[in-house]
């Protein structure tokens, strides 16, 4: 943390630019001083996503969503967009459009394989429980959707990202956003304004017309839970900031009024949302600003205005107030967040897999709050352990030297 307020404001001066890697002269050795905030808060978001996904989990009342209109999903997409914009546009500049495109599609492929793997687990669960036990309570509704009667078709729809069972809605969003990224980055270089206008126009179209959505199988009328036509606005805005960052930052982000605006928005968001959280815990607590009033602006599927504005405000505030190498992030307690954030692609996929398994465990054995704690803790521990292994592997890889170093750091930076 900066020592004084004046110091703090000088940090605002580089709010855009301070989300950084400092570049060395050598083109190949890319990352020298890593912006630890990106890793730390992405790690935090990953833990929150996992905890929020467990059914009936009391701990979910203590994650980001209880103090912000937005939740960990927005934070994750924002940081991922920012990192991806920064890393891949640098690759694009040094190695060209084709290499950057291939790198991005390597990521897309990994995500896609993870998606298909999750789908296999889903189908195995379904085949076992419904097939063997002939589920009685939902026979009628499943009869209407009938994907068990046509597993071949269901499989094709899953491969086309059409079929999105529980927990399988975030990966498709991420896949689609990354898949478009090469074109968007090329657009940033050639002409950013058309990209900007299209992105905002799409987001607005989703806000005003609920028919602007992507269909899902088995339908009819099913839609993607995370509407990519809305969520792209957050991802590409963040990618643009990341892209600008390696070109000297964004000067208008330096204005002092922007800091106060962000502070005001974050504070208002906190007061209103936290009041709702308390009200959920204890009904007699009055609610001055009703959810009924703000509800149309709070859609998660469509990334409603308040969620969008809230995540931008809070992240701006965090980037202004916390130094990229702030001391608290060097403490041992911060290390699990850092390593999970640094290996976010793997830990993200692992987190979703663990959510599915945790769901099955909690619904089989229940066990109340103690069990919710135990499953949450076990999941987080597994995420940290796997991230630590990946770190260790990366370190031995780097130590083996040679050209692997550049590739490895670039790849690490690219974990978007």
């Amino acid at each position, binding site marked *: 943390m900066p020592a004084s307020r004046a110091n703090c404001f000088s940090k605002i001066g580089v709010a855009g630019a301070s989300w950084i890697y400092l570049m060395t002269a050598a083109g190949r050795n890319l990352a020298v001083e890593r912006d630890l905030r990106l890793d730390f808060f992405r790690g935090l978001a990953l833990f929150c996503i996992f905890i929020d996904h467990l059914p009936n989990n009391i701990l979910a009342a203590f994650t980001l969503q209880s103090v912000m209109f937005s939740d960990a999903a927005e934070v994750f997409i924002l940081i991922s967009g920012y990192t991806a914009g920064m890393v891949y546009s640098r690759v694009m500049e040094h190695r060209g459009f084709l290499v950057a495109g291939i790198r991005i599609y390597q990521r897309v492929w990994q995500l896609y394989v993870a998606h298909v793997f999750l789908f296999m687990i*889903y189908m195995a669960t379904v085949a076992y429980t419904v097939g063997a036990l002939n589920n009685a309570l939902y*026979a*009628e509704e499943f009869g*209407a959707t009938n994907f068990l009667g046509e597993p071949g078709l269901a499989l094709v729809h899953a491969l086309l990202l059409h079929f999105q069972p529980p927990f399988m809605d975030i990966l498709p969003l991420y896949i689609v956003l990354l898949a478009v990224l090469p074109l968007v980055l090329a657009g940033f270089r050639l002409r950013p304004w058309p990209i900007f206008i299209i992105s905002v126009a799409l987001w607005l179209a989703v806000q005003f017309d609920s028919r602007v959505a992507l269909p899902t199988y088995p339908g009819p009328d099913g839609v993607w839970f995370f509407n990519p036509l809305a969520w792209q606005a957050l991802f590409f805005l963040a990618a643009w900031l990341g892209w600008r960052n390696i070109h000297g930052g964004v000067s208008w982000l330096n204005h002092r009024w922007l800091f106060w605006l962000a502070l005001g928005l974050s504070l208002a968001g906190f007061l209103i949302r936290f009041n709702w959280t308390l009200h959920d815990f204890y009904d007699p607590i009055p609610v001055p600003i009703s959810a009924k009033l703000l509800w149309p602006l709070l859609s998660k599927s469509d990334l409603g205005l308040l969620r969008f504005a809230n995540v931008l405000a809070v992240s701006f505030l965090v980037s202004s107030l916390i130094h990229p190498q702030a001391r608290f992030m060097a403490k041992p307690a911060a290390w699990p967040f850092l390593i999970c954030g640094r290996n976010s692609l793997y830990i993200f996929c692992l987190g979703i897999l663990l959510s599915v398994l945790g769901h099955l465990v909690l619904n089989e054995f229940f066990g109340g709050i103690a069990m919710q704690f135990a499953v949450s803790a076990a999941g987080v521990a597994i995420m940290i352990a796997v991230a630590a292994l990946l770190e260790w592997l990366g370190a031995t890889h780097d130590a083996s030297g040679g050209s692997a170093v550049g590739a490895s750091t670039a790849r690490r930076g690219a974990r978007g």
Partner: protein
Amino acid sequence: MIPVLLRCVMVAVAIGPISKPLVAFAEQECTVPERFYTFEPSLKKTPRALASGGQVLIAALGGASSLGVAAGGLEMAWPARLGAVLAEKFPSARTKVVNLAVARQTAKRAVERLDRDVLPLKPTLVIWETGTMEAVRGLDVDEFHETLQAGIDKIRAAGAELVLMNMQFSRETDAMIHFEPYLSALRELSDVNDVPLFRRYDIMRHWAEHGSLDLRTKDSEKRRQVAARLYGCIGRAMADFVTHGDPAAKHAPSPDIGR
């Protein structure tokens, strides 16, 4: 099995006060802890009319689970069981439960039917079981929210009391259907509109946690029997729910509430 179309046609069945319990219930099997009954404010007109021996018409809206499909028919469904319990508890009241459920019905369809099939009956209380079809199909959760809000406003404008009921819980399907967004939409609507929410999902989860009413058997006859007991339990819990919070109703004789 009755064909779906036929089932959709036989929607309106009135349960008179004389119907007897068809299944013997093991009462300990499905006690409901007090915490599932707390909501502010509670119903007024309905418990009062029941206690004072007035005329009470309850309209049940919903889908397959309100039709008692898994248990083998309408007389096994929770609306029928609710009617039977209320008749036993309040013998002097003229209680009638009309089952207007239609299998696979979305909230949107239910709202479209309000003017034609529901509100002309001038119900004292509407119990609206909803959300299942939306969750199974993955329909737009914001639209679900808007539709329910419109329905709530309409039912209240007609002067009826309203109880919302959420989905069923079952271990197998819980990992298969993304219920949470729809459950949370129902919670929120109940809260901001002060509409009591019968948390069937949580109540059934509580029963599953305590090992009762397990439907996981290959024996279809056994499964049918468990489903019948389950719907009986829901009916009784609902009878408790609608009369909860009214002192007059509380002191009425309650022969079969296993709490």
